[in-house]
Structures are given as C-alpha cells and as structure tokens.
C-alpha cells in the first residue's frame, strides 16, 4: 500500500514533468514571429511564380517569394513608387535595333533550393509563358503574364550574367512590364518533373504535374520561401535568411496567408486576434478597429474609379464642355466623407508629383458655378437637362462601393443639369462589355461605363483607353476615344528609350488626356488595411503593393 504523502509527491512530480514538457515547445513557438494575414481573395493566389487574383496575388504570393528583373520601389510612403533594379542591375535598349534589350544580371543570387540564378534561368522563365515548344511551357500561366508584357517575344543568353530580350516592336515600357515576370527556379522544377511517376508518359501531363508539385513547394529568390499550401485555406512562408538584399532580409519568421473574402469575417478575425493584418476592413468597422488599438494604413493607390465616356455618334459626351462640366460638378470631399475617408480625390489618372503628371491645363476640382456655366453654354438647363446613361455593377474587384457612389454622382450631377440613368448589371457582364465597347448590344445603350482600373504602368494607365489601336475588341478603349494627336503622343512615349525622356513623353500624354477628359475622374482607392499594433516598420507606399520583408513584430 502506498502512503498518501508519497502518492502526492509522485503526482506533483509527474505534473511538473508534463507541464514543463508542454511548455518548452510552447516557449519555442512563442519566440517565433508569425504574421497572419487575412486577404480579400477567396483562394490562395497561385504560388508557382505567376500569381492570379489580380494585384493582390502579386502582393502576397508574388513579391514575397519571387523577384523579377525589375522591381517597384516600395520603401517610401511619399512620392510615386518608381522602377528600381531587381534581379537585373542595369538594362538598355540596343541603339541600332530598338527591339533588343540587354539586361545585366545580379551576381551571387540563389534560389531557395540552392541553385544559382543566371541567364539560363531568365531564358527558362521567359520560355515558360512564351515558347509553346519548351517542355516546361505552362498555358495556365500565360494569360496573367503575357497580357502584362504584350510585346516581349523571346530571351537569349549572352553570357552567364547577361541576357538579351526581344520585343515585337520598339517598346520603352518593357522594363516596367517586366515587374510582372517572376523568376521561378528551373532546377527545382526539373526535380519536380523527375519525381512524376514514370507511368505518366505524356510530356504535357508530366509538365502539368511538375508545375502542380512546384506550386505546393515553390522556389524563387525572394525574401520568403513557401513551405505549406492548403488549397483555399492557408499558405505558409518562412523567412529566407540568406536573401540577397540585406535591407529586405526578413525579421518575421513566418507569414501565414488566409483567404477571407467576406469583409465582416475579416474584421471579426482581426478583432478576435485570429489574424494580425486584414486587407480592406469593413468601412463601418473602421472606428471600432481604431478604438481597439489597431493601426489603419492607407495611401493613394494607382487606381482610378471613373466613368469612361462614349464618343460614338450621338453620345452626349462628345461635347468637351459637357465632359468638363461633369468633372467640375462633383464635390469629392463630400463623397470622401460618405466613404468614411477611404478615398482620395483625383486630379487625373496619376496625381500631381508623379513623373507622368504633366501639368494639364484643365484643373479637376469642385466648381459648381463653372460647371453650370459650361452646361448653359452647351445648351442645357434645369428645364432642359441632358440625359445620360451609365452602366455599373453592384460589386466587383476594385469597384469600391459602386451603388452608393453612383447614386451620389446621380444626385450631384443633377445640380448641373444632368439627368442620369443608372443601370446595374452583373459584374462579369460589365467587365466583359469593357472589351466589347459602347457600340455593342451588351452596353445597353449606355454612354458611360463604370469599370475601375489599375494605373501601374503606362499601357494599363493610359494607352489602352486612348489609343485608336485599342478600340474594341482589341482592348479597353470602350468609348472609341482617340485621334491622331493622341496616337502620336503614345508612339512618342513607346519609342523614348531614355527613362527620363519616356516619362516626359508620358507626361505630355497624360496632360492631354486630362484636358480632353474622356473620363469623369471620381476617386482613387487608398488600399485600406488594418494591422495589429505589434507589427512594426509598416510602410504603405503609393502602390498596389506593400513590402512585408522589412517589417518586424513585437
């Protein structure tokens, strides 16, 4: 028979051993700095190098894990985010043949799997989306990549650290477009291919399986290395302590990405401590988020929330006075208040201070008297209002809050003798009609469309809306706006190969666009995100992207 005192001693000792064995790993885990991010997407953006889910994909599974030849500077909150060297240290177009570019590569860079980054890797990564005969060509990566670098044709190795890229036509936008081509590891992919069972004989099927395996265990050169993918639920990355850029060597040990598409669910996840960072918190929860000690970050993004006017015969927007009047009739400060401060007032497609700004002569502002004067000159009055029709959607990527915003515009423009008819259609239908154009039956007789857009590079920001070569169905010049003068400005910009000259040409183009006003510029999004106060070193640049690498956690 055991004495009670001895039993108690044994029980206490056993408890102490159990407790200590439980606490040791907990302590180790507690020291690990883990950043959990609630994204707006419904799935983990693709992890194999070319992310989907728009720029949120580039933001979370592109830039943290991969590098491109050129990068956006995400280190400053003020001023525009400009192009800087990435895996290429310098580049120039061939003076004799402007379709050829030579890129000098950064020495000493390694992929996460330990293989070296070199010219072969660049050629391989160009082939993965452009060369249908390459064994690793992947159709699923083509759409999101090629359309963002439409003129890139091929790559050729000059030596280990030099590569030549060829474009289909002289195109000074190429270095900007290359921020979208992320470098995946050829050696790691080859290892995945070798691991595909031998009974899979079809080379295309083998390549497909190798890419699927690569997506689950990716390898780039970026500051974080992807280690665990649970489709549609979570993706984990760990710090790459050997990252080549000392300033971007991660201080956070692990980043966990969670898709939380519903704004209230994201907000609840943040407030309950399930995540440390959410994208786009529910606007009505902003005050609560702040009151609980979370930090709200926002900055003007290269994003435009517009009405894009139709210039087809019979459109009421053909008269420039009417287009200017609409731009002068909207009190954007009032609209900002309506949106809880989550917007910035635009002065054009890019803001003053941007290299492409160009000092346009038309100042986008709120000037009711001037707007009414212009409308009176154009022959309209309260008794004889101008009927216009705009198509929009109830929701959609980047659309912010389309219904209340459009209803506000409807009300505001009434002051200036506009009689606005709004037709709300399904987001995908609206988006598809963006390519079909104003003349298409799916435009439903509208003379303006409300599709928001990113203005990161010159093609996306301007060219596709104003070039006559971008008329539907080629690109997004929905309203058939354009003329010889604008086309010449586009051509000048495309063929100015000195970066400063190119920017000056783009500034001239932007100034003329603002003066001609093919849009009603309503708002820029500010990319709101809420973070726990324990996340330090957060810099939100004027960009769609944000750099996690320099951040730290208490």
């Amino acid at each position, binding site marked *: 028979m055991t004495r009670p005192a001895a039993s108690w001693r044994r029980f206490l000792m056993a408890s102490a051993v159990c407790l200590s064995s439980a606490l040791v790993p907990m302590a180790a885990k507690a020291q690990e700095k883990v950043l959990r991010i609630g994204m707006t997407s419904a799935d983990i953006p693709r992890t194999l190098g070319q992310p989907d889910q728009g720029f949120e994909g580039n933001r979370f599974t592109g830039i943290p894990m991969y590098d491109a030849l050129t990068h956006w500077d995400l280190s400053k909150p003020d001023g525009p985010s400009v192009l800087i060297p990435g895996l290429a240290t310098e580049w120039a177009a061939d003076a004799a043949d402007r379709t050829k570019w030579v890129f000098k590569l950064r020495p000493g860079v390694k992929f996460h799997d330990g293989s070296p980054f070199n010219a072969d890797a660049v050629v391989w990564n160009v082939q993965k989306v452009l060369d249908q005969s390459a064994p690793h060509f992947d159709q699923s990566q083509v759409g999101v990549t090629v359309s963002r670098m439409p003129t890139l044709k091929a790559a050729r190795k000059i030596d280990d650290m030099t590569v030549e890229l060829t474009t289909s036509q002289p195109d000074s936008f190429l270095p900007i477009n290359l921020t979208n081509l992320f470098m995946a590891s050829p050696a790691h992919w080859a290892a995945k291919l070798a691991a595909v069972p031998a009974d899979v004989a079809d080379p295309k099927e083998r390549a497909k399986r190798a890419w699927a395996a690569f997506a689950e265990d990716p390898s780039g050169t970026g500051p974080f290395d992807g280690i665990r993918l*649970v489709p549609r639920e979570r993706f984990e990355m760990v710090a790459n302590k050997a990252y080549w850029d000392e300033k971007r060597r991660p201080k956070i040990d692990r980043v966990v990405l969670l898709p939380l598409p519903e704004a209230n669910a994201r907000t609840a996840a943040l407030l309950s401590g399930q995540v440390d960072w959410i994208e786009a918190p529910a606007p009505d929860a902003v005050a609560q988020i702040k009151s609980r000690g979370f930090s709200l970050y926002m900055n003007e993004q290269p994003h435009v929330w517009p009405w894009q006017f139709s210039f087809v015969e019979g459109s009421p927007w053909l008269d420039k006075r009417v287009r200017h009047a609409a731009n002068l009739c909207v009190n954007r400060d009032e609209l900002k208040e309506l949106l809880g401060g989550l917007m910035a007032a635009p002065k054009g497609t890019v803001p003053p201070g941007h290299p492409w700004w160009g000092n346009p002569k038309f100042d986008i502002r709120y000037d009711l008297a001037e707007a009414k004067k212009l409308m009176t000159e154009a022959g309209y009055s309260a008794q004889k209002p101008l009927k216009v029709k705009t198509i929009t959607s109830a929701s959609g990527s980047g659309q912010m809050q389309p219904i209340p915003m459009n209803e506000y515009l409807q009300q505001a423009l009434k002051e200036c003798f506009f009689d606005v008819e709004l037709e709300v259609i399904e987001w*995908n239908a609206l*988006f598809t009609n963006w390519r079909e154009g104003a003349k298409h039956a799916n435009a439903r007789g509208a003379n303006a469309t409300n599709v928001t857009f990113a203005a990161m590079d010159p093609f996306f920001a301007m060219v596709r809306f104003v070039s006559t070569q971008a008329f539907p169905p080629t690109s997004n010049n929905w309203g058939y706006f354009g003329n010889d003068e604008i086309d010449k400005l586009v051509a000048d910009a495309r063929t100015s190969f000195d970066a400063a000259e190119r920017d000056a040409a783009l500034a001239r183009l932007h100034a003329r666009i603002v003066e001609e006003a093919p849009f009603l510029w309503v708002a820029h999004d500010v990319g709101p995100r809420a973070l726990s106060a324990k996340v330090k070193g957060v810099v939100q640049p004027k960009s769609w992207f944000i750099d996690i690498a320099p951040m730290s956690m208490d």
Partner: protein
Amino acid sequence: MLSYVLRRLIYMIPIVVGVSLVCFVLVHLAPGDPLVSVLPPDASEALKAQMMATYGFDRPYWHQFGLWVGRALQGDLGTSIATSRPVASEVLRAVSNTLLLAAVATAIGFAFGCLFGFVAGYFHDSWIDKAASALAVVGVSVPHYWLGMVLVIVFSVELNLLPPTGAGPDGSGDWAWNWAHMRHLILPAVTMSVIPMGIIARTVRALVADILGQEFVGALRAKGLGDRGVFRHVVKNAAPTALAVMGLQLGYLLGGSILIETVFSWPGTGFLLNAAIFQRDLPLLQGTILVLALFFVFLNLAVDVLQTGLDPRIQRG
C-alpha cells in the same frame, strides 16, 4: 426490397442525365467570360483565341457537353481554370468539410427540433407549446447569415471564446476531434442548425398533435397504458416522417450554405461555389453543382429505403 432498390437505381439514370444537362446549360447561360480569372480584359484577341482553344471553349456546346459527361463518367470532372487543380479533388475536399459541418448541424437541429416538437405537441395549446413553437418560428425565420454574424460578434469579438473563421488551427487538412479543431466548428454548426431545427420542430409538433388525437391513442389509454407508454407509441409513429424531413434537411445542408460558409470562411462546397461563381470558373462550377445534385438524388434514395425499412406499412410501388 432489393428489387425496389435496383428499380430506383435504374430510375436514377435519366435523372442524372437531366441533372448534368441542366447544370451544363445553366452554367453556360450565365453572362460573362469564362476566362476572366486567367485572362485580363486587355489581353490580345490572339491570346484569347489561344486560351479558348486550350480550355476547349471554342468547340460547339454539344461537343463540350459530350466531352464533359464522358470524362465525368470516368471520375474526371476536369481541371479548374483558375487554379489548374483537378476539380474532383477540389470538390471532394470541400464535400468532406461540408459533410462534417452538415452532419453536426443536422444532429443539433434534429435533437433540438425533435425535443421542441415533441414537447410542444404533447403539451398542445399550453404555454410550453407556445414557447417551443415561437422558438421554432424564430429558427425558420431568422436570416442565418445575420445570426452567424451576431454569434461571431458575441462569441469571437466580444468574449473571445471561439474563432470566427476557418476549419482548424492549421486548416481542414489535418482535422482531428479535439478541442483545437472542434471550437472552429461550433459557431458555423449552430448557425446552420437553426433552420432544420425550426422545420423539424414544426413538423414533429403537428405530427404529435395529430397522433395524439387518433383513436388508437384513446384505446391505449383505455387499456391502462401510462403516459410514458403512450409517448413511446407516439414517437414510433412520428419517427418515419421526422426522419424523412431530417434526410431532406441533411440534403439541403450538404449543398453547403454559400452564406454561412462565406461568413465563417468554412472551406466547404458553399465556399467553393462562391469562389467558382466570382471567378467564372466553369469546370469547377459544373463539377460542384453536379456532385451536389447527385448527393441529393442518392440521399433521397437512402431516406426512402430507410423509411421503407422502418415502417412496413409503406409500400413502394
């Protein structure tokens, strides 16, 4: 019984063909571009044509339908356009998550629904009946996504007792019946159980009230059977209908709730459908709808067979 089951299985063939046709037609009737998730709107026409050919959208509809059905018969539901993952594995993972959620929600709904229903029916027209009926009406009427949000605010945001989203601390892949995982299940399951609870309670209440008014109950009492014995007979008589309603409710819940699964980011079929709809991912949408429709068909069959087994009076023609 065996011939009945076989006959029902044969009847299912035209149903399955009809379901797959309706599913294909509905998905293709919806507006929008099926390549919207992989092709930005400014992609060139040549690139668009190349992608349309790659995914087979350039072929006539009858050809696309034939290919899809042919592959589906071999267990291949195609490849998701947005993720390049096989649709079958995506749907299977989602179905297993929804099955877990639906089973727990149905169990809660059935247990409380029967409890409220029997009590209300047994104490017909008393205050207990009124209270239980009121609860059932609330259960049927309250918008469950709203209830979900309220539960999240109370139990996650304010009390910090339960997690508001997800299917486990590390995702649903390694689900285990431990507290770390089960705490993720509580709020969505309770939210999801409210409607079946209300429906079952109302059905059972009406049944019990009806059965109690029948002559055989009077005969039982006249023979001197006590309340407990009478109650047992009432339960036995009400069980087949209650079970049938439960089966139907389980079928509805297996379809997943887009709203509940989105509110709680529960990676089930509703969450998957939501993503597929927003990305216009046609193969994923078709595959998910087909699997869910087939589930419903099989579940109805299972309930019918079970009912026949439970109640010999039911003669299936």
